[in-house]
């Protein structure tokens, strides 16, 4: 996943907030179990979120920081399942998506949806172009 190509370059500019908002909206359309999600840049700033971006940004920073401190380098993705819901985070190039879903959401589907949306966002593809 993160191994696909290097960081975003001048020829592939970072996605705009509008593109990220469209990605969040697409994610909400795709995943019935989703409660909310946010797209973050590599510096941790929220490009778009389904709620208050600052709150998502703060909470996501703590989660990703805790995971990175596990001691085996920067994490690629993570899944935390609790009694109250499930949390997913996926990194792709310079972008990260953090998502919260209902309990017992199918992890493989959630991760697939997140990866698809992030990959299209990083490649500058719109929803219609990204769909197979």
């Amino acid at each position: 996943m993160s191994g696909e190509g290097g960081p975003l370059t001048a020829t592939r500019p970072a996605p705009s907030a509008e593109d990220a908002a469209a990605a969040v909206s697409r994610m909400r359309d795709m995943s019935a179990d989703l409660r909310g999600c946010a797209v973050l840049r590599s510096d941790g700033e929220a490009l778009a979120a389904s709620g208050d971006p600052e709150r998502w940004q703060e909470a996501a920073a703590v989660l990703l920081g805790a995971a990175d401190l596990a001691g085996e380098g920067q994490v690629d993705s993570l899944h935390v399942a609790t009694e109250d819901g499930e949390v997913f985070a996926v990194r792709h190039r310079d972008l990260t998506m953090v998502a919260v879903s209902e309990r017992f959401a199918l992890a493989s589907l959630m991760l697939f949806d997140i990866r698809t949306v992030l990959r299209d966002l990083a490649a500058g593809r719109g929803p219609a172009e990204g769909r197979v």
Partner: protein
Amino acid sequence: MNKPHRVLLERIAGYADEAAAYLRRRRIGRRPFARVYWSGGRSRDYPATTKTGRSLFLAAARLIEVGVERKARGD
């Protein structure tokens, strides 16, 4: 002998029963977990009793609150 469409319906109902039973077992048997993946396919589970596990569960709980707040507002 059953009519062909009955055979088909029974088979589909059988699959649905199997799927429902699987989901029931999954709900009963599943415990909270925190799983981290690195590039190259490495992954590791962190029980809540470990320092990293505790941090991950606390951070996840905060994120779930953010998601619930959004839902409660009806956005």
